[in-house]
């Protein structure tokens, strides 16, 4: 039976409310996460857009360690600043990454706000609108990383195991496909947990 999934949205700073609205539209129960102890209570986590350096300051060392523990164990989806946080290495300038995805990311890779844009890219084979705001770029993909979306030649959404990231903002578009894929990932991770680690590992 499909039980309602409890999805946390990291709400330290940024567009967490846009993620909350989208996830609720898709039927998830959403918790705004501001304290590490709330992580114990959720099936998956979204790390929103915002300022990644601000997130790091607000997490502090202890919060960072607890968040790291969570993202290595449970389904997590980061957009823009969230993608930066999930990466293994961050450039321009260098800063700490949680290392849940074997990727390197360059902050503000397109330039400043005047270089922000809405473009069409491809997500899992279908065209999709992508909102890039002072967006990062993925500069290195590790061998275990699957590319879910591209814009031009750039990989802009990726997945590795239970972790998903997008350098654009699906929460600011009308198209629900990316969030739906994440909720499916949460669903499948639960199945895996129940059926043993070898069962299906798919994204629709």
């Amino acid at each position, binding site marked *: 039976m499909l039980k309602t999934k409890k999805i946390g949205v990291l709400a*330290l700073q*940024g567009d967490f409310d846009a993620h909350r*609205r989208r996830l609720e539209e898709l039927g998830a129960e959403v918790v705004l996460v501001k304290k590490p102890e709330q992580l114990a209570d959720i099936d998956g986590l979204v790390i929103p857009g915002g300022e990644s350096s601000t997130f790091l300051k607000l997490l502090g060392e202890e919060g960072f360690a607890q968040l790291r523990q969570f993202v290595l164990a449970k389904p997590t989806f980061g957009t823009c600043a969230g993608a930066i946080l999930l990466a293994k290495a961050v450039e321009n*300038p260098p800063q700490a990454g949680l290392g849940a995805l074997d990727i390197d990311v360059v902050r503000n890779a397109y330039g*400043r706000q005047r270089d922000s844009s809405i473009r069409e890219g491809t997500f899992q084979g279908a065209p999709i609108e992508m909102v890039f*705001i002072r967006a990062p770029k993925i500069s290195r993909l590790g061998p275990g990383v699957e590319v879910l979306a591209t814009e031009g030649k750039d990989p802009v959404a990726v997945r590795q195991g239970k972790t998903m990231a997008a350098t654009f903002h699906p929460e600011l578009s009308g198209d629900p496909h990316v969030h739906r894929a994440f909720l499916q990932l949460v669903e499948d991770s639960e199945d895996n947990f129940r059926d043993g680690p070898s069962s299906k590992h798919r994204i629709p």
Partner: protein
Amino acid sequence: MSSSNGSNTGNSTSLRLKTGLAEMLKGGVIMDVTDAKQAEIAEKAGAAAVMALERVPAQIRAEGGVARMASPKKIREIMGAVDIPVMAKCRIGHFAEAQILEELGVDYIDESEVLTPADETHHVDKHAFKVPFVCGARNLGEALRRIAEGAAMIRTKGEAGTGDVVHAVKHIRQIVQEMKILTVLGEEELYSKAKEHGAPYELIRMVAKAGKLPVPNFSAGGIATPADAALVMQLGAEAVFVGSGIFMKDSTTFAEPAEAEKRAKAIVKAATHYNDPKVLLEVSEDLTGAMKGLAIAALDEANLLQTRGW
């Protein structure tokens, strides 16, 4: 700003990018800075953005004279020092200053009553720019007139440079209350409300339907302590601007950098945990002496900045 269909074209695409950056700043603190050193302190403390200025409002108020856009050299120095978004102010109606700021590449322009107005009748046509604008407002009508002109973010005016939060509170309460009233009115009553607020009917109707502004709604003007930030956010502000409250000791002298950093960090935490008194106590505990400030009640009408613009 979630639209249910993909039929977004031209102008609305641009507005979505503009409000998109404002979405990213929510829950954050935007700090006034006057040099690269202060900008670095702000970024290190967790500011979501900085406002690059020649003088903070408290200094402008104390020194008088004509307050204009900061020098491009100063703004460039600040842009070079940090990786977070950099905003800068232009005078009300001064579209040429705005053109210069856009060319410079700032991430947001504040068409601000803190500077001496350049036009007594017209604000900048903000649709004509690619760079997003934030504008101040004291009430719903003013907010919607600015949005009609293309503002992608509204902030309360409060009374800048005073360290007195009373008018930031007054303005956020006013805007929130006027929006609440619209939500319970019948369609036929909205026309006269449009007239009463001096705002376009279409925008009045949007607010009546959504119960909130079509763009992010932040607070500014006199916020000086973590408690002040928590207060305006509990009243409905989605982020805060802190001007003179971080780097000034009083209207003419700067605070010690270590003191400013401590205060900046505390306000950043307060903006995130604005409804958690335990955290608010914790961050307020080891702060000493906030900016001395000026009580607004003791100011002459003629010395108010908030009455600039219409």
